[in-house]
């Protein structure tokens, strides 16, 4: 049976559909290859289920919402056709006006109230209402592009938008591969989500639209490249781009080379948070997170990794090291574990850079401990992380993000299901893994501070020692009354408010933390794409299932102190 294609329109000028109608003689080719089951511009009959639905226009009314949901349910693949569908485009400008004003502006005094055809809600892009598989940009779209997409779908069906490049260099612009965040302008649909994230949510302003019309492009000022700019390499543009126009510098080949050379002693260090998002793309049918992690350890060993180490224990050690640092430096200390936060301080507040203590960061402790414990030649460290920013740290031999790990396994056609999990654990156990099953603590920055407080207050009753207040949404003020004195901490979970607080007298705080990623590293810049809260919760649940509840902070801290004292000489 020929694939069934349907074309539907919502609020739009129908120009994109016209482009399809304009394919003229090529329409004949198209019709030979596919069955067009619905296309209001050229035919009358319509029918329900289809393989691909092309959607033109944006969603305006409750009845539109209902209709698009039905279409979604009946379509295997849903494509947003043109700017109105992709982004809401000019239709969205109406959102600035109260609905009544908008209606009056267009329909004058005609009474349209109560008529469901005029029942406007906010104007929305298609992906604000249902899942969109693919996007074709353009106002209107280019007909060659539509044809190309249709052929691609049935020739070599792409798995996700991320795999799909335009076959044509639609905009005559080259890829930008100068920085750790690469950019392919030909994929960009100009939705400006990256710009909004970088400018409004993060207040970093590294990128913005330049030029206009067909020449418009998302770029850095004077095209100086991300790294030379204010960019802090957080990768939030990358995870928020719906079409994968941004990508990380791939280190898959580099890792394979490290593994091929048998004289290397390759150690994989895995941050389990990184696995929460790529679990769906790992080659396995297993659904239990803990088992997947263990199978992955076996699979990496089969690929000739000598050891697979849990990163979480170094984050725990960092708590102890930072605790010491905070005790000894009563000035404000910036203790974020996030390398992007450090880059931010260096670029925007160089005067505060001296208050950072990079030595006590988990990566630095990890590097020191591993080097100390493995006095082998050719020790090679591959870091699997939720965060692209680590790629700028030359101390690692390779850094793989959540998006690259499945690609690494794919090169060797690894199926995790064939690898054992029973009795498999992480190597290089410093004495904490058995006690505090790994899983990481930087889900929320907040939970991290609690542990830091627990460390400082040592064996005091934590509830009495810690007071938690909030100055406004996402800005927490903590006071921990420790046996060493009183410490004040400020935790900023919303970067757009950062300048306000750093502009204040920061001397009243002993500890300041901030992170660019809104849910912490769970949606970090190297994670697989997500824009949905449900997905974030799924990731969180995976981590929890693995980590279990932390038994008690006291026990944790006393254990931590004893491990820290033991390895400290080596740090």
């Amino acid at each position, binding site marked *: 049976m020929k694939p069934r294609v349907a074309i539907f329109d919502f609020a739009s000028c129908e120009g994109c559909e016209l482009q399809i109608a304009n394919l003229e003689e090529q329409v004949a080719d198209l019709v030979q290859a596919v069955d067009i089951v619905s296309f209001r511009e050229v035919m009358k009959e319509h029918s329900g289920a289809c393989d691909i639905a092309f959607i033109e226009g944006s969603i305006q009314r409750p009845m539109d919402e209902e209709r698009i949901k039905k279409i979604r349910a009946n379509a295997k693949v849903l494509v947003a056709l043109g700017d109105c569908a992709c982004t809401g485009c000019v239709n969205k400008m109406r959102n600035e006006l109260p609905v009544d004003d908008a209606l009056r502006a267009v329909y004058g005094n005609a009474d349209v109230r109560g008529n469901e055809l005029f029942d406007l809600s906010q104007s929305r892009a298609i992906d604000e209402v249902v899942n969109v598989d693919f996007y074709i940009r353009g106002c209107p779209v280019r007909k060659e592009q539509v044809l190309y997409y249709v052929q691609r779908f049935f020739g070599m069906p792409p798995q996700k938008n991320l795999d799909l490049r335009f076959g044509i260099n639609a905009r005559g612009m080259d890829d930008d591969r100068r920085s750790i965040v690469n950019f392919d302008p030909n994929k960009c649909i100009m939705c400006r989500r990256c710009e909004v994230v970088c400018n409004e949510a993060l207040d970093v302003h590294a*990128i913005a639209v330049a030029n*206009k019309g067909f020449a418009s492009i998302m770029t*850095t*000022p004077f095209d100086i490249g991300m790294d030379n*700019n204010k960019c802090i390499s957080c990768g939030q543009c990358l995870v928020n781009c719906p079409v994968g126009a941004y990508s990380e510098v791939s280190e898959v080949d580099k890792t394979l080379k490290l593994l091929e050379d048998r004289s290397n002693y390759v150690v994989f260090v895995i941050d389990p948070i990184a696995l929460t998002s790529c679990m769906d793309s790992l080659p396995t049918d297993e659904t239990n997170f803990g088992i997947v992690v263990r199978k992955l350890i076996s699979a990496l060993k089969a690929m000739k990794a000598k050891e697979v180490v849990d990163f979480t224990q170094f984050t725990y050690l960092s708590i102890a090291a930072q605790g010491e640092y905070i005790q000894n430096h009563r000035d404000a200390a910036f203790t974020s574990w996030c390398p992007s936060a450090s880059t931010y301080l260096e670029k925007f507040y160089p005067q505060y850079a001296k208050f950072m203590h990079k030595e006590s960061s988990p990566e630095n402790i990890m590097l020191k401990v591993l080097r100390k414990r493995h006095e082998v030649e050719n020790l090679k460290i591959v870091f699997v992380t939720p965060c692209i920013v680590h790629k700028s740290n030359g101390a690692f031999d390779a850094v793989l993000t959540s998006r690259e790990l499945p690609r690494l396994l794919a090169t060797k056609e690894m199926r995790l299901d064939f690898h054992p999990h029973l009795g498999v654990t992480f190597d290089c156990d410093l004495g904490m893994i058995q006690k505090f099953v790994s899983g990481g603590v930087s889900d929320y920055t907040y939970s991290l501070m609690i542990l830091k407080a627990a460390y400082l207050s040592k064996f005091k009753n934590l509830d009495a020692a810690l007071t938690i207040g909030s100055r406004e949404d996402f800005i927490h003020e903590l006071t921990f009354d420790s046996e060493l004195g009183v410490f004040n901490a400020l935790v900023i979970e919303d970067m757009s408010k950062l300048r306000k607080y750093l502009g204040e007298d920061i001397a009243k705080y002993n500890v300041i933390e901030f992170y660019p990623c809104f849910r912490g590293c769970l949606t970090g810049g190297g994670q697989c794409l997500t824009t949905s809260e449900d997905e974030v919760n799924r990731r969180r649940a995976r981590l929890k299932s693995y980590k279990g509840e932390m038994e008690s902070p006291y026990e944790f801290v006393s254990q931590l102190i004893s491990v820290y004292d033991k390895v400290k000489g080596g740090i």
Partner: protein
Amino acid sequence: MDAKDRKMLDDILSSHRDTRDPAMLILQKVQTSFGYTGQDHLTYISEKSCIPLSKLYGIVTFYPSFRLSPPGKSIIRICEGTSCHVRGGARIVKELERQLGIGPGQTTKDRKFSLESVRCLGCCGISPVVMMDDKTYGRVKATKLAEILATHGGE
């Protein structure tokens, strides 16, 4: 940029200290005072005013009234209006680009020519039209361009 330039920029900035959304007005003054809005100017303004550089760059690349580099000695305006387009304007643009080695909005390395594209110069009857500074050339043929450039100091 020298001390004099910085002083000029400081003056422009201080004249807009109380303006709401001053970016556009500041940039316009820079354009009139310097003849262009260059990377140095924009970087300086951004540092002093806290207006993000990316925003300034977005503005100057959007509006045709801003130039990113100092203009050349002669300014070539090539019409890309409908009438000129229909009568082969696009070919003229291509040929000029080839001969000068620059695109619209750019200036040759020797700073002799700047190329600008405009929409309708108001003399469609003699399209396609090219203007060299304030001299207008009508019914331009691609083969005649070298000659025209030569009369304006080109090789």
